[in-house]
């Protein structure tokens, strides 16, 4: 029996190794879960892309749920996400606010003119200061905010049709049930 002990030890290590591999295929290691889920969205006031004189704030958006989608013209993954938003953005049932992150406004306008604009409104955070309050560490990222201004869901990385069907839409449906 004691001769088999090293073998069992080896099996245990193999199992641990296998678990590690399995775990890493299920989870994106670069993904940092947001501590802001189910907490009030940070207060912000940001200018609109098409008219910087007008601003959009958390308080002005209060009352109805909305989706904030962080994007930038320099962001490659946003280009991947963009057709998905073009196809499904209008059908998810909440307004989609484009959050132009650390981008030159002219570049952002050109990008939207070239690829199409899936957003109901686009707000600009050129310095990325407000983004720090949101815990943004890259683009694209998406936040679902409910009518009370609470962040309910965050997607790190591009929204895919799969993510929209399996995560975003159920989250929006749950909000709709809360607020008849």
């Amino acid at each position, binding site marked *: 029996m004691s001769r088999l002990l090293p073998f069992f030890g080896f099996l245990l290590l193999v199992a641990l190794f296998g678990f590690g591999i399995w775990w890493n295929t299920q989870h994106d290691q670069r993904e940092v879960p947001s*501590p802001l889920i189910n907490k009030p969205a940070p207060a912000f006031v940001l200018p609109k892309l098409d008219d910087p004189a007008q601003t959009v704030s958390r308080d002005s958006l209060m009352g109805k749920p909305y989706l904030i989608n962080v994007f930038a013209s320099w962001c490659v993954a946003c280009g991947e996400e963009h057709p998905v938003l073009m196809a499904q953005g209008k059908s998810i049932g909440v307004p989609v606010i484009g959050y132009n992150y650390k981008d030159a406004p002219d570049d952002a306008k050109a990008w939207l003119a070239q690829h199409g604009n899936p957003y109901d409104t686009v707000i600009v955070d050129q310095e990325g200061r407000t983004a720090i309050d949101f815990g943004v560490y890259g683009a694209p990222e998406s936040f679902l905010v409910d009518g009370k201004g609470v962040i309910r869901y965050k997607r790190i990385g591009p929204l895919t049709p799969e993510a929209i069907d399996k995560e975003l839409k159920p989250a929006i449906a749950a909000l709709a049930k809360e607020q008849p």
Partner: protein
Amino acid sequence: MTHGFASAGAHPVRGHQTQRRSWHRALRALLPLLLFLLAGVAMAQAIDPLPFKDHAQEVRFQNLTRELRCLVCQNENLADSNADLARDLRHEVFDLMQQGKSDEEIKQYLVDRYSDFVLYDPPVRRSTLLLWFGPLAILLAGATVVVVTVRRRGRVAPAAADDKPSDEGDDW
């Protein structure tokens, strides 16, 4: 450098002397490159000058940003990272310092936004107990196994010594 080696390899008949000379040539060619790289390092540090009040504050800033993780590169700290976000966060840390916030308050500010992940030193919590004390537990378990094995063998060995002295060390 590779060029030096390639020419030596192309004319193997010329032998050792040529090879050494080409080494020298390679080194001489490399020297400006090294200087250039060093200058680059110096420049990289000068790119991000922050108006510290005094040296003590700068040291505090360096120590603090070294304990914070860059979220983009993840295996780099804020002090070393060249990522855009890391620069923004350095400025944020700097601004908070100017406002008179303590190190703990600044860390909490970032943890509130980016979770415990920004800290290189994870706090002791129920969810991190295994992380903190797991290695110690494994060490103790290993030590227990060793002690028990040694004791048991010590008891068995004198009796077994008469029968099969050659089997020693094979069985553990």
